[in-house]
């Protein structure tokens, strides 16, 4: 034992000495290597709204404001301050020290150009349009200030703007804003950002190399107006396979990894050289009930009736699931049992709602009262490659439902198939996930519990088509309420309503987990974004 350890140590020492002899020391010290589970699909800050892209944008292309996902506070970025002139007019003062690569400070023209470009990214598969939907006009206001006018009051404007990276307008002349193309036809092409010809705006870092599926190399921006990042260079290595990502960390190839899989938690926790960094995330994992179709596609043995239209059945299913057990055993403690939609640290959380108890007896009784003493045949649906441990969690739910007398089967599908089927209403009880990606609860609630209304872009994730007039009224009011406390109250009331209706089967809120070398400080983030510019060695 001790002999093998000796060999191990001396080999490691020898290799270390060799590596030091071969490599210029400065390169090794100043580079942070990060192993990421999913790579950005583009450097363009307006190209695609998905986790990895948003994560990259946070480090290379500042927005007007920053949405601190820890407590939901809005912090200054390119705008040093902002004021609400009237219900629908906001004035932003731009930071004169924020300069683009050519030394020119950010101006109103750049803000107008960037907000307008969101609608004009060629071939963008899913853009940021909903963030700028309410913006009616953007215009300069003297030197270094910009005025944003919204269609009616928009309490989420700051959160919305925090998602739009500001790129440099090719011309100094401000465009005349409109809701289409601002009279411009020549937009910066996405590949100019990808091949590092054009910088994606002003950020602590800028991209010097982007090779899809391989790596993204970031270099420190020497002219950055804010605090300079510690690392000169950051390399994001795309390592989608969980085992390989862990191996890369254990072997020292990378210093930090994101999306630590549940089954590696113990291994990393036991390793003195490594550290787990976690933060409760806003993403709720839930099951949705089909509350519209009759008969519903995946239920048999009810003579064509959809039992989920009956609140007693929805309550029974909610009581039949032991959330604590799922969190503790399937998720190994890396999740927080959920009572309702918005998690505890996000604006709009309702602290009065309690996690529903596990009560299989009451569940059986409720099923009997609803006219299903012998249960019914149900197939539940879940993706198997979208959320952490998604199919395992679905299996646990399947078994719990079987215990209250339902004849349950489980089908799991890859996400490429799953979500298009869910959108086609082919499921009855099906897993989903929704995060507060604008950093507060209203957007999450609008997506999940507002009546589905594609015209107005509401209820986008409400594929079970839960619908309550009361909820819609609360949320509609919240949409135009600028006063924070009043709005918070409305969000809480809406959730109390859906809680009472058992409109969903909320399971848990995910916990975002990173693992890093224990001598590196790495900042966690509830939106599961990799914040690279605050990473530094400890001490």
């Amino acid at each position, binding site marked *: 034992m001790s002999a093998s350890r000796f060999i191990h140590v001396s*080999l490691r020492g020898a290799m270390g000495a060799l590596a030091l002899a071969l490599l210029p020391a400065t390169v090794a010290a100043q580079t942070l290597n990060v192993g990421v589970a999913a790579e950005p699909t583009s450097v363009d800050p307006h190209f695609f709204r998905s986790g990895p892209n948003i994560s990259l944008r946070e480090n290379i292309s500042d927005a007007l404001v920053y949405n601190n996902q820890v407590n939901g506070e809005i912090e200054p970025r390119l705008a040093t301050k902002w004021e609400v002139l009237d219900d629908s007019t906001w004035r932003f003062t731009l930071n004169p020290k924020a300069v683009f690569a050519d030394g020119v400070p950010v101006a109103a023209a750049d803000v107008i150009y960037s907000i307008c470009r969101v609608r004009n990214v*060629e071939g963008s598969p899913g853009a940021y349009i909903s963030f700028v939907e309410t913006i009616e006009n953007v215009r300069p206001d003297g030197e270094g200030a910009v005025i944003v006018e919204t269609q009616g009051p928009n309490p989420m404007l700051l959160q919305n703007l925090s998602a739009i990276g500001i790129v440099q307008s090719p011309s100094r002349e401000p465009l005349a804003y409109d809701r289409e193309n601002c009279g411009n036809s020549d937009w910066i092409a*996405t*590949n100019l950002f990808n091949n590092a010809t054009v910088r994606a705006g002003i950020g602590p870092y800028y991209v010097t190399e982007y090779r899809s599926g391989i790596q993204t190399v970031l270099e420190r921006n020497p002219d950055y107006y804010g605090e300079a990042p510690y690392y000169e260079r950051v390399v994001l290595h795309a390592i989608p396979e969980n085992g390989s990502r862990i191996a890369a960390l254990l072997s020292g190839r990378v210093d930090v990894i994101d999306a630590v899989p549940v089954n590696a938690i113990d291994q990393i926790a036991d390793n003195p050289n490594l550290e787990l960094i976690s933060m409760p995330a806003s993403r709720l994992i839930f099951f949705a009930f089909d509350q519209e179709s009759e008969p519903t596609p995946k239920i048999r043995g009810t003579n064509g009736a959809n039992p989920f239209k009956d609140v007693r059945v929805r309550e029974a299913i909610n009581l039949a699931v032991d959330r604590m057990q799922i969190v503790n055993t399937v998720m190994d403690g890396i999740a927080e049992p959920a009572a309702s939609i918005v998690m505890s640290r996000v604006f709009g959380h309702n602290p009065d709602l309690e996690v529903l108890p596990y009560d299989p007896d009451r569940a059986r009784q409720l099923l009997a009262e609803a006219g299903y003493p012998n249960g019914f045949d149900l197939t539940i649906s879940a993706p198997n490659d979208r959320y952490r441990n998604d199919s395992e969690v679905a299996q646990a739910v399947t078994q719990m439902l079987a215990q209250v007398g339902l004849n349950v089967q489980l089908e799991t599908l890859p*996400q490429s198939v799953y979500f298009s089927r869910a959108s086609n209403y082919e499921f009855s009880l099906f897993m989903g*996930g929704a*995060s507060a990606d604008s950093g507060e609860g209203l957007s999450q609630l609008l997506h999940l519990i507002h009546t589905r209304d594609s015209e107005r872009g509401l209820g986008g994730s409400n594929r079970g088509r839960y619908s309550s007039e009361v909820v819609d009224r609360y949320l509609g009011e919240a949409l135009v309420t600028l006063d924070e406390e009043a709005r918070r109250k409305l969000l809480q009331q809406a959730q109390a309503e859906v809680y009472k209706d058992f409109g969903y089967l909320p399971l848990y809120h995910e916990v975002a987990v990173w693992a890093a070398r224990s001598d590196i400080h790495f900042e966690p983030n509830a939106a599961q974004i990799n914040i690279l510019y605050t990473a530094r060695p400890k001490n």
Partner: protein
Amino acid sequence: MLSYALKRLVQSLIVILLMTIVIFIGIWFIGNPADALISPDATMAEREAAIVALGLDKPLWQQYLDFLSGVFRGDFGNSFVYRAPVTEILAARLPASLELAFVSFVIAVSVSIPLGLYAGLRPQSPFSQGIMGFSLVGVSIPQFWQGMVLIIIFGITLSVLPVGGRGETATFLGITSSLWTWDGLAHLILPAVNMALLKMSLLIRVTRAAVMEVSRLDYVTFARAKGVRKHRIVTHHILRNVLLPIVTVLGIEIGNLIAYAVITETVFSWPGLGRLLISSVQVLDRPMILAYLCFTAMLFIFLNFIVDILYTYIDPRVRDAIQAGGRK
């Protein structure tokens, strides 16, 4: 010979055409790529916009015709995910795949043919038994697990080799490859061995079986009776005849090494073509899948063609047969 080549080419093009139709219909059956690409939180309006942006709002036959007319102009279209030309993305990944395939091919051939030859010539010796045992283990251990074991032993416990990714590259003779740097080679060793082990086991078995079969044939016995030196019998009489099945297997295996190194590339996060295919399939990136499979189809057709030509050099009977066929 030329008409034979032409015939093969036309056959291949028909195969590729049919394949693209199957892929188009297959993906259409699976689901809408827009749903796999956009965030599940996206609104219906955003979904509609994405569908239009990707050209998925047109009827399927029209999408297919658009694709075909693009191909005739040499344009395979843009990837749904990256919105960059798929040919560029493929070209960027190809060198990594080629060098990995090359190194594992060299390892596999240089180890397995001598071993297979030995095992075939002396099937009873304990060393031969050992070789066969090794090849059995090689075939039966899952490649994924074997890769992980290699990583744990050489990358983590011993810390002597890098555990993943491609090393530094350098340009030499106009070729940019990680073969030219020590760092690059160090990164290549584990994935190449991982791929080579499986191929080795197969090649050892093929070689051994062929050697055992050939060495029982009359002309070998005759040569031996004539007093031809043992060495000469092996190189001139046995090896030459054994080459035919080996070349056939090699032709297919090289193609597999280049195009379908999915498992090795995933385990070692090697930026090659195999991983590209998997990630494209996951999000139904149809242009990428199409271009990739067209490329691999061409690759296999080309390799088969090379194998056929090699046959004619190795075995005059094959050449005669082809020429007879060509005259018909």
